[in-house]
């Protein structure tokens, strides 16, 4: 029951906010926050039961035989549920302040709560269909939230893109479900995993591939990642909630959840690991070329998720999941802190127009610093433990090139995160500098003007500052400390691995590591420091700070086109698929349908009418002509009757 409560309270909150929005006014925010809080508490209360073998299971209903629905809470879903509701709670709280005065305040919280519900459904379901429902609803919620400011064309387009790419993911999962149900005749995870050993390798690979299309779309893996940067069109708390803490990690959840399948299919593992690695490095590279603070964070998210996917893909489940755990905190914190900045600068998102903000937003300064340290994997901060665990796990599972990619990515990450940090907080405030001097494209300036129509112009009193500051401050704690859960002296009996002891299949090659763990940590640290060094050299030296405007202008103008256009993936997808579909549609709808198919139909009708005109013309009104026709008929008949006699 508690489980159901945890699931449904956010839904109830969503419905209440949506239906009663006009009457609730500002109360809606508190109501929604409370709902998520209740959900969090309920989940927390189930901790004990969930960590028992088998976890908590609740059977709900059945569509028909084989289609049994239920909820389950085991360590994996418990972890996700806690993050979703816990981080979600903080973000809700933050939103009360951030969204204050928006025209659709209540609607925003309805969407947020709905998102929490969908995410909970996703992680709590004990079956494929339930997962898929949650999966789809999460996509829907993200669509709503990204397109929250729907009068803006770009937001609408971003929302649509996110939704459609997510549907591609849904479809991949659906494909996997056909394969599973057709072979297992049950939609439950447990039945599937129990039967997975009997699957042939091609089938298993197909299932995994289908599932991974879903995971890739949701977790913004190459080449289905293009929605994620665009998704920053949504309000900042949305970015924090969806694109940092929860939604994008659903792919990680899925792969981790399906560990029994993957572990039987090395080919699938290879696929996932490769894509994950590719995403990690692509995201990182693209992160170096962004100017929008939220887009930098978005690419960093993409890159980090690539890590996780790579980890869980190749079998380093604990590491991947651990990185999800730590990433949730520091990335949420980074986003929320950047939201503070954006809020303070009245919706300015371009880092080139920031600078010297330490004094203006001290909390943001500290929060972002901690977040950057954590994401870079500075020892002691949470990211250090989890990232190293992935890199080490990849190697242990026998993929040295991924190991290399992981390390390289760590270095690039350190570079662009510190770049962000330095440009934002060091030097002079550049808010009053002419955008052209900063190398900003004129159309981009125009677009920014229409940004975030929200909080201005509201006559009501401001919400208390603490609702925004408190979550940021609170998140600093786990950002720093969460990693320690993973730490253990003997390398195997950390609280973390005890927690997941029963969850994941043990990797067969776990012991065959060529490089010891401490060595990995050191190498990684070296790479990270190198990255930081480059960033310092470019942005943090005294001379760099002095010539900031010129430097930024140069950098903006010299940015390689390849990076500005994000490797042309978007262009390619747009050109091939979107335009292709439109072209086909136009061809069918404007030419084939009205002219060929319908033309044939109309041709038949027209020929009947033409025949009618002919009949009319033959009916000349002249008796002699009629008589002639009759004689003609007589001739025909006689010809038949005279010569038709049987002989």
């Amino acid at each position, binding site marked *: 029951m508690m489980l159901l409560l945890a699931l449904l309270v956010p839904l109830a909150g969503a419905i209440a906010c949506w239906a009663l929005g006009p009457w609730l006014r500002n109360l809606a925010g508190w109501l929604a926050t409370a709902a998520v809080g209740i959900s969090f508490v309920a989940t927390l209360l189930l901790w004990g039961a969930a960590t028992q073998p088998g976890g908590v299971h609740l059977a709900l209903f059945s569509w028909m035989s084989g289609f049994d629905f239920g909820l389950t809470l085991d360590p994996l879903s418990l972890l996700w549920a806690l993050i979703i509701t816990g981080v979600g709670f903080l973000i809700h709280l933050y939103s009360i302040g951030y969204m204050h005065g928006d025209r659709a305040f209540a609607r925003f919280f309805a969407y947020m709560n709905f998102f929490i519900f969908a995410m909970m459904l996703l992680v709590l379901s004990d079956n494929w269909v339930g997962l898929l429902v949650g999966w789809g609803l999460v996509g829907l919620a993200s669509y709503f939230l990204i397109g929250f400011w729907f009068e803006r064309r770009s937001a609408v387009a971003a929302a649509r893109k996110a939704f459609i790419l997510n549907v591609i993911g849904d479809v991949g999962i659906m494909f996997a479900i056909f394969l599973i149900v057709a072979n297992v005749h049950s939609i439950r995870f447990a039945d599937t995993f129990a039967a997975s050993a009997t699957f042939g390798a091609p089938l298993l690979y197909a299932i995994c591939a289908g599932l991974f299309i879903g995971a890739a779309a949701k977790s913004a893996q190459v080449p289905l990642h293009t929605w994620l940067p665009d998704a920053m069109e949504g309000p900042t708390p949305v970015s924090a909630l969806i694109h940092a803490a929860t939604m994008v990690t659903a792919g990680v959840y899925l792969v981790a959840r399906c560990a029994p399948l993957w572990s039987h299919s090395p080919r699938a593992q290879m696929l996932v690991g490769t894509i994950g690695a590719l995403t990690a490095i692509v995201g990182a590279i693209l992160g170096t070329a962004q100017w929008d603070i939220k887009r930098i964070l978005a690419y960093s998210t993409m890159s980090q998720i690539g890590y996780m996917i790579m980890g869980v893909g190749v079998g380093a489940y604990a590491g991947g999941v651990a990185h999800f755990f730590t990433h949730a905190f520091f990335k949420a914190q980074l986003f929320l802190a950047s939201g503070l900045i954006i809020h303070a600068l009245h919706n300015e998102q371009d880092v080139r127009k920031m600078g010297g903000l330490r004094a203006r937003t001290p909390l943001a300064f500290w929060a972002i610093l901690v977040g950057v340290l954590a994401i870079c994997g500075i020892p002691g901060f949470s990211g250090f433990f989890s990232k190293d665990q992935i890199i080490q796990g990849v190697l242990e599972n026998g993929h040295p090139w991924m190991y290399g990619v992981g390390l390289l990515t760590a270095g690039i990450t350190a570079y662009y995160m510190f770049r962000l940090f330095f440009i934002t907080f060091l030097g002079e405030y550049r808010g009053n500098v002419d955008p052209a001097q900063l190398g900003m494209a004129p159309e981009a300036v125009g677009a920014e003007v229409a940004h975030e129509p929200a909080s201005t112009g509201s006559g009501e009193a401001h919400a208390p500052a603490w609702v925004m500051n408190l979550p940021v401050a609170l998140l600093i704690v786990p950002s720093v400390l969460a990693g320690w859960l993973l730490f253990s002296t003997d390398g195997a009996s950390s609280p973390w691995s005890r927690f997941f002891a029963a969850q994941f299949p043990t990797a067969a090659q776990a012991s065959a590591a060529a490089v010891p763990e401490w060595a990995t940590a050191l190498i990684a640290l070296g790479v990270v420091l190198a990255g930081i060094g480059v960033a310092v050299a470019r942005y943090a030296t005294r001379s760099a700070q002095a010539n900031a405007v010129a430097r930024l202008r140069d950098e903006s103008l010299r940015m390689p086109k390849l990076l500005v256009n994000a490797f042309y993936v978007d262009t390619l997808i747009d050109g091939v698929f979107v335009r292709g579909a439109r072209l086909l549609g136009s061809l069918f709808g404007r030419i084939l349908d009205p002219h060929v198919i319908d033309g044939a139909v109309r041709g038949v009708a027209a020929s009947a009418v033409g025949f009618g005109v002919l009949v*009319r013309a033959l*009916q*000349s*009104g*002249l*008796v*002699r002509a009629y*008589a*002639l026709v009759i*004689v003609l008929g007589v001739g025909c008949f006689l010809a038949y009757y005279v010569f038709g006699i049987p002989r």
Partner: protein
Amino acid sequence: MTPGLLPMPLVDYLALSAVMFFIGVTGVIVRRNPLVMLMSIELMFNAANLLFVAYARAWLNDAGHIFAFLVITVAAAEAAIALAIVVIAFRASKNVDVDEASALRG
């Protein structure tokens, strides 16, 4: 003449009647004067009558005679009505020509 036997071969009568009949048909088609058309129709009827009479003789069955008699009677009645129609149809018209009567068409 023995019973059942004709003065001439049967086919001669038939051929004669066929020729008469089709002369009548031709008249109906090629003439434009309604009266001549009606006369042509009378020719057709008479050709048929010849057929009946010849066959009646051949079969020694007086049904053919009766039939011919009926045809003559009917022809008389038909002529009466036909001529009345011709009169009313062409009384107002300047020309006595069936081609004039072609208002109904299409």
